[in-house]
Structure formats: C-alpha cells, structure tokens
C-alpha cells in the first residue's frame, strides 16, 4: 500500500484516484511547504479574480466614458507618441525575471548555491525595477490629474480600479522582492543544506504567480 511506484501507463483519472485514496500523503513527493504554497496561491487567485471581477463590473456598468488605455498609457519619445511603451518594457522585465527565477530553481536542484544566489538577486533586482517603473507610471497619471476619486477623461472608476489593482499587484511584487532576498541569503548561508533546496522552487512558485497576475492585468487594463 505504501509503495508509490508509478506506472506511466495509468490514465490520469486512475492515478488521481489512487493518490487521493492513498495513505500518508495525497500529493506524492510534494514537500509540505510546496503544497502549502500551492494552496495559498489558489486562495490568492481568488483574491485577484475578485478584484478583476470588480473591474469588469465597473467597466460594464458605468455610463460615463472610459478612457482609451492605449492613449492614456502612451509615452512620448522624441516627439513621437508610442502607445503602451512603458508597459511593454515592464512586461519585458517581469518575463525576464520569471526566466531568471526558473533558472534559479534549476540551479537549486543542482545544489549550485552561488548560482542560485545571483540568479535570485537578479530576479529581485528586476522586480524592484518593475516597482520603480510602476511608481513612474503612477506619478505620470497623477500629474495628469487622475486620482482614485477623480479622472479628467471620464469615469472616476478608471482611476479607482487602476490604482487599486496595480497597487495590490505592486505590493505582491514588493513582498516578493523581500522574500527572494531573504531566501537567497539564507541559501548561501547554508540554512537549507540539509534539504533538497525545494525552498527555491517554493519561492519561484510565488514569483511566477506574480508574473501570471501581470499577464491578466496587462490584457485587461492596458489592451482592453
């Protein structure tokens, strides 16, 4: 009963039923922290989706005009107005940080501590620069007299929901940066030497989730 030899021939339903009806652990071979992180992320998904549903409802019910995102978020470079330039750069940065994070996880399982350290620090640096750009974008909007309670271009809900959701996402990124730095230093200090470095993967899960949320924010707030 406790033998977890797995045949790859099993159908996905058989294997699921078997894991769920086994003793000791349901997610075979998944460390506690990782299981917990997944469930937390599930809960966080509900938070973000509720925010996004709020956005949808606002957008669909207001009768005042909604600003055109690609004009609002355009940057003027050398006299030319490029739509969504800053957002494109931010997206680029966040995807890159996801890439470095994935590499860090890989290095972790190879027990290359310094590689893990530098890759995580790079990830954190990219994350921090993302937050910096978000500050820039907020400043720009505020200078254009957009407020959480007011928006010169039309529906005030535009400002409300924008600041709230990007703010909440930015908070997640900032927390993630701190989390990354803490784990990175603890890795090189040898705190996790007795483990399999799954902590790097757990941190990575969180970080990729933040990236994932950005994918949706990018689509719904800037392109829609």
């Amino acid at each position: 009963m406790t033998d977890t030899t797995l045949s790859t021939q099993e159908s996905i339903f058989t294997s699921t039923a078997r894991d769920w009806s086994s003793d000791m652990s349901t997610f075979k071979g998944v460390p506690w922290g990782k299981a917990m992180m997944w469930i937390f992320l599930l809960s966080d998904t509900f938070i973000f989706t509720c925010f996004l549903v709020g956005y949808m409802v606002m957008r669909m019910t207001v009768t005042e005009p909604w600003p055109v995102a690609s004009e609002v978020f355009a940057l003027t470079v050398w006299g030319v107005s490029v739509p969504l330039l800053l957002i494109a750069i931010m997206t680029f940065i966040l995807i890159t940080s996801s890439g470095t994070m994935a590499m860090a996880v890989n290095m972790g399982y190879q027990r290359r501590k310094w590689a893990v350290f530098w890759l995580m620090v790079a990830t954190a640096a990219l994350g921090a620069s993302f937050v910096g750009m978000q500050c820039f974008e907020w400043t720009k909007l505020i200078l254009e007299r957009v407020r959480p309670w007011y928006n010169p271009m039309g529906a005030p809900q535009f400002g409300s929901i924008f600041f709230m959701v990007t703010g909440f996402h930015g908070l997640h990124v900032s927390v993630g940066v701190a989390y990354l730095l803490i784990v990175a230093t603890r890795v090189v200090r040898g705190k996790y030497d007795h483990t399999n470095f799954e902590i790097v993967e757990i941190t990575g899960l969180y970080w990729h989730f933040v990236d994932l949320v950005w994918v949706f924010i990018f689509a719904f707030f800037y392109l829609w």
Partner: protein
Amino acid sequence: MATEGQQHPIKIYFLIWLLLFVFSFFSYLVDYLDLQGNLRWFLIVVFMLLKAGFIVAIFMHMKWERFALIFGILLPPIALVVLMFLMAIESNYAWNTRVWYMGEDMAPKPKPPEHLHHGESEEETHY
C-alpha cells in the same frame, strides 16, 4: 520528505521565455495595429491564456506534477468562472437599466488624456 524535485533541461526554460516574448509582442501588436471589435477581444484573450498556460505549465512545473495536484489546484477556480459569467450578465442588466430608465448617454466619448491636448481643460483640479 524524499523528492527528486523538478529538474528539467534548461533549454525548455529558454524556449518558454522566448515564447512569452513572442506572445507579448503579438498582443502588443493587436493594440499597435489598432484592431477593434471581436477580433481584438479574441486575440487578446487567446494570447493572454497562452501566456498564462505556459507560465503555469512550465515555469511553475504544473506539467510535471501528478494529476492529483493538478486537479486539486485547477478545479476550484471553476467557481470563479461562474462568478465572472454571472457578474457579466448582471452588469449588462445594470447598464441597460441605467441607460433606459435614467436617460444616460449610451456611447459617450472620453476626453483625451492631457499629454495629448495640453492646456485645454478648464475644469477645477481635484487634489
């Protein structure tokens, strides 16, 4: 707890990295080319879901997890789909009642952002 961990050839991460850029670029293009209407919504959502799918499947290693975990995590959000769907219907209804019964303007035009029309607005500032 004995685990092998998630170890995969680095090549695949680079591939996904690249793909994410490509998809982001395409969705950016949707805006740049100013596609409108159903085509726009369709493309945006498709690229969004593709990107999300790759992040979850490869970067978060969902693809290599056992189905016990995959089902456990991916089934509950169905409730969110229901919420979203019903709220869309509800909002549509609310908008209709506002427009029909309260005589609101049906398709008002937004004012352009300020960096596109300097110094035109005379409205009071709300600080």
